[in-house]
């Protein structure tokens, strides 16, 4: 039996009441997804250093980068990016960067290829030799230092932040610094070399601590911190997003390259 015409119209109207919002919802979800994908692609195509200056790209990258950071980086760098001195893991919320200037592109490179992580694209150059050992450096024949020389060097470096109390000892320290070849990485002016990850020794920023005992230990036992290479573990988008997130943790630098 055929339903009356008016009943059929009412049923159609009821159906439309469900179908139209459903279509609108689907359209909204699809549009949102397409828009998100477009923004994600824009984040990847953009000049990395321009992302933090573009509110739309910045927000999208930071929102996507935060969970990546939490999953892969926070175990060493800490949830708030404050680092860990016992492991020589750097503080990410200051403006000090051991490896160059801390641009988004440089952070992304480190996340992708690591530091001393076995990837040839990565930063594998400098290792702090262990001068209280028979062979201080595996890659280069360097002479070990005597306990007295190590003590002189440690006091010399410590004096830059603690203050010079004995100018003669400071001169002996400088002679020891030059003789031991420390300048080769840290520079004649002790200003460091960001290109090889050799830190400046005259400021009060310390990766492993700046007490005289910490400095003595760094000279005696050496240091060689490592950052893993995530090239095979994270997608390009995740790497870019996490780099933007990490860069956003540091205060804005007007001269950032």
């Amino acid at each position, binding site marked *: 039996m055929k339903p009356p015409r008016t009943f059929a119209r009412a049923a159609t109207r009821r159906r439309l009441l469900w179908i139209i919002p459903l279509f609108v919802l689907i359209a909204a979800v699809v549009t949102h997804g397409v828009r998100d994908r477009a923004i994600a692609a824009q984040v990847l195509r953009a000049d990395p250093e321009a992302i933090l200056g573009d509110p739309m790209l910045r927000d999208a990258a930071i929102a996507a980068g935060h969970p990546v950071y939490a999953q892969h980086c926070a175990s060493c760098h800490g949830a708030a990016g404050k680092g860990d001195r016992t492991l020589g893991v750097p503080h990410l919320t200051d403006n000090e960067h051991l490896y160059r200037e801390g641009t988004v592109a440089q952070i992304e490179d480190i996340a992708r290829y*690591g530091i001393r992580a076995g990837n040839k694209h990565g930063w594998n150059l400098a290792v702090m030799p262990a001068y209280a050992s028979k062979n201080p450096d595996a890659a280069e024949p360097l002479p070990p230092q005597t306990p007295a020389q190590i003590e002189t060097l440690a006091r010399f470096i410590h004096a830059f932040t603690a203050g010079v109390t004995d100018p003669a000892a400071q001169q002996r320290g400088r002679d020891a610094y030059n003789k031991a070849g420390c300048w080769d990485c840290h520079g004649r002016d002790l200003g460091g070399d960001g290109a090889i990850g050799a830190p400046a020794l005259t400021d009060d920023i310390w990766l492993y601590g700046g007490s005289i005992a910490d400095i003595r230990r760094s000279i005696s036992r050496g240091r060689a911190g490592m950052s893993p290479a995530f090239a095979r573990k994270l997608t390009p988008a995740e790497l870019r997003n996490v780099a933007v997130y990490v860069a956003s943790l540091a205060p804005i630098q007007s001269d950032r390259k």
Partner: protein
Amino acid sequence: MTQDTASPTPTPTPTPPPTLAPAGALWDVHQPVGRRSLLLAAVGALLGLGIAGYGLFTAQGTRTASIPAEDAALVNAIPVLRADLIAQVTALYSVPYAQTTRSQRQKVLDDMVREELYVQRGVEMGLSNDDIDVRQALVQATEGQIAQDAATAKPAEDELRGWYTAHRAKYASEGLMTLHEWRVPAGADPQRAVAALRSGTAPDALGLKTTGRVDDGEEFYFAAQEHLGTRVFAVARGLADGAISNPIPSPDGVHIVQMIRNTRPVATPYPEARDQVLRDFLADKIARLQEGNKRFLKKRADIKIAADLQ
């Protein structure tokens, strides 16, 4: 009276000849229209094809439709990463990427494309088998890959502590010693010289001369061992502060060691050694993974070794 009691039989309605549904019927869902079913099926098929095509041409590894956002170029479907381009451009011109010109970027990209083409050609030509540098680079890169995989997961604190406990001696400080090494003059009695030294007689008074091997003051154990030789060092290591050794016969005469101060190695507390523990733990993990990888590769490979070399 005859009454027609039979109910009136409905006259069968003649079936209308099949005609095309009126135009408006296609959109009236209450009217069955064959064309609508076909249309919906066609739309569904097209939608399915579209989704399948999108998946096929945009999935990872099948980058054929367009250049993915993260890539600067595709060379025979092998990507050249934008990030690598940026790194190379900034390294080459020493200016921020934004300040480089289009031609500078294109030049670097052109070089990268050329490199990729040559790499692909090299693989085609079998250089990975022939060229010694390529072979070494491949071995190192494969080893490096294993190292990367091993390092991306940070070990748990318990694992690090366990490692430290098992290798505590490795994290001890280097021992230190300050000492004199005397040579007994020819004809003198070494035992008497030792007894005199132990009773406080000055070495000069006994005619003892230094060997000159450890006169630089405090030395690390490894340096003292290097200077004294294994045999004399072993004796020296066992001496307490202020102790005098027994005579030690040596090729150049009899030696006596006078220990001034012997500071033995001290275990470094875990928090101070943590960075080194992590480094050693990972190095060991990498070595084990590489060993396991070698076993796996050997197991799956078909290796035949000549009978005389087995």
